[in-house]
């Protein structure tokens, strides 16, 4: 029997189609559903009103992360403002009423939804995984088709364990060669978004390939897939391999004993076939990628750290020129300024992009034995989960960071979006390891520069944007 070569995406898709209508719309099966407090209350309310149960509680996992304070007194009375408290308690109540497993604030396993899924082994290759959160793309690092959905779809998955979908187009992004010293997965994905643009991936599922991608750890792969959405793509994929299997082996929710062997045999088939075709191909050379930072208010506005702030006239498109002028004004930047002359006020290390143990190790390596610059008002490290925090403490990382002058916090989304009290003040400038530099994202009027953990650590030490290779 001969079969047409298929991409990884097509294989996962084919294994999940339940039914396809004449017009090409399919009903697909959803293997795993992650739930958090912000995008779920209206969905649970819908279920209650229609008297519908949660279809598969064994495939559903809930956690509170967006609203939770990161201060150590957060479990005490009054640790949260009223609205946040209501939202968190609504999640607790809904999980109890419907029998959904929950990691509450007091649970060591609590953390950012996209960090805890992989950490527990809930995320596995070949799965379809959804969550009412656009950075669900993170889980694609395991070769799972993972994407963010809105609240109506959250309700749909809770009620039916399925979604109505049309197949996406496919784009392969190959990064050949080896990354230079001081250049990380974060720089690679920022450079890719700079290349394809924030809407470049709209309608596509991205597959990352090439030596530079394959040689990444799972942490690095998650950083890349996490930001697929910033390139407009709902999902990013990396074919699973030995690195993936090693990471998963022995995790609490991963398959055990003979089930493990059966799973690995299936997972090993999950790679694009030789000769499979893509709707679009992008090829980059790892050697061309420098430590990269954003200067504007969309993640495509990137520049190597050696560059200068661009001028509106550097762009051809009239709409983009207008938007660049607005961005420079918002960011308080003057065209022509070398990036390394830009001083910052705050440092934020954390988020589902870079809040994992490897990220904290990278920060500790840079700041060990040094102290943060006097102009830095606050440098905070927010571990992605309670378990990351525990591990960092055990490895002595927490101590290094605290000695350097960092605030060491409890797990949560924190200043990635500032729904909790961690926010920028107007005009404050932040070196941030998160994923979005939108206007007001980290606090009204706040100015965000996205970069890798090592680069953010370097900025903490010098007080300004810094080329990590020079430090």
């Amino acid at each position, binding site marked *: 029997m001969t079969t047409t070569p298929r991409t990884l995406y097509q294989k996962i898709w084919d294994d999940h189609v339940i039914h396809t209508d004449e017009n090409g719309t399919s009903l697909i099966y959803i293997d795993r559903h992650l739930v958090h407090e912000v995008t779920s209350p209206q969905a649970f309310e819908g279920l209650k009103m229609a008297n519908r149960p949660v279809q598969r509680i064994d495939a559903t996992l809930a956690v509170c992360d967006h609203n939770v304070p990161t201060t150590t007194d957060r479990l005490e009375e009054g640790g949260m403002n009223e609205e946040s408290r209501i939202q968190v308690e609504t999640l607790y109540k809904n999980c109890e009423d419907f029998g959904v497993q929950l990691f509450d604030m007091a649970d060591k396993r609590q953390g950012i939804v996209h960090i805890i899924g992989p950490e527990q082994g809930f995320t596995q290759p070949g799965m379809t995984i959804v969550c009412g959160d656009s950075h669900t793309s993170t889980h694609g690092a395991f070769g799972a088709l993972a994407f963010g959905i809105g609240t109506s779809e959250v309700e749909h998955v809770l009620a039916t364990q399925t979604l109505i979908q049309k197949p996406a187009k496919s784009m392969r992004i190959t990064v050949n060669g080896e990354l230079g010293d001081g250049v990380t997965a974060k720089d690679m994905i920022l450079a890719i978004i700079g290349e394809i643009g924030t809407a470049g991936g709209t309608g596509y599922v991205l597959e990352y390939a090439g030596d530079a991608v394959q040689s990444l750890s799972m942490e690095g792969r998650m950083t890349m897939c996490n930001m697929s959405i910033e390139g407009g793509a709902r999902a990013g994929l990396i074919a699973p391999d030995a690195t993936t299997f090693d990471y998963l082996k022995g995790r609490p929710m991963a398959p055990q004993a003979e089930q493990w062997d059966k799973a690995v045999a299936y997972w090993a088939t999950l790679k694009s076939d030789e000769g499979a075709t893509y709707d679009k191909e992008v090829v980059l050379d790892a050697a061309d990628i420098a430590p990269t930072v954003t200067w504007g208010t969309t993640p495509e506005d990137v520049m190597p750290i050696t560059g200068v702030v661009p001028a509106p006239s550097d762009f051809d498109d009239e709409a983009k020129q207008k938007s660049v002028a607005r961005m420079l004004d918002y960011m308080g930047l003057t065209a022509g300024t070398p990036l390394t002359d830009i001083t910052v006020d705050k440092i934020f290390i954390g988020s589902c992009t870079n809040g994992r143990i490897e990220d904290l190790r990278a920060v500790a390596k840079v700041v060990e034995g040094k102290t943060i610059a006097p102009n830095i008002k606050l440098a905070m490290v927010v571990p992605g989960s309670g378990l990351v925090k525990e591990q960092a403490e055990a490895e002595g990382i927490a101590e290094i960071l605290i000695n350097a002058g960092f605030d060491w916090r409890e797990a949560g989304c924190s200043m990635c979006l500032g*729904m909790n009290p961690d926010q920028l003040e107007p005009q404050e400038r932040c070196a941030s390891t998160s994923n979005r530099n939108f206007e007001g994202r980290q606090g009204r009027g706040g100015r965000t520069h996205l970069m890798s953990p090592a680069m953010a650590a370097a900025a903490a030490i010098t007080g300004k944007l810094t080329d990590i290779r020079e430090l």
Partner: protein
Amino acid sequence: MEKFDKLSAIAAPLRMINVDTDIIIPKQFLKTVKRTGLGVNAFNDIRYNEDGSEKTDFVLNKDAYRDAGILITGENFGCGSSREHAPWAILDMGIRCLIAPSFADIFYNNSFKNGILPIQLPQEQVDQLMDEAETNPEAPLEIDLENQTIKRGNKFSFDFDIDPFRKHCLLNGLDDIGLTLEKKAHIADFENNDKQKRSWLYKS
């Protein structure tokens, strides 16, 4: 979900590209546990000053566009987060139709689930509609979903494309969950087969 068939309404031009979901509804308003009531907070940071007064340069604050039911805007509208609070807020301010050269995927999807019609048109046509809406604010724009047309009297008429399934749901105000539950037998078949193939994904 409310049906959408025809709409005749004032169209407001929002001349911005990449309007992200943090602009449409900033995070401090995501703490609600309801779908309604977000209209007053829509576009908060570009709509209000720090002291809560209105910014005069924001298009929906101008008298001519206050009652707009249609928003015409630039490419990649709705990029960013998956928050359905964005279409909820837009709907709650009375906007039922969006016109842009392109939309971000999740936002586009979320709009349909809430009875909002997002229309994608070529840039030149969007530009023309923007210019029209600016020079002639009081004349309503007429949207006809059944026939897939946008008209202004007999001044001009554009056709637009839309996925037939989405059109059907919108025209009839159909709820996806109800439609899917009609396929219960298919779902059960899938699960039974899958339990053989990928047994590790099911609790035994």
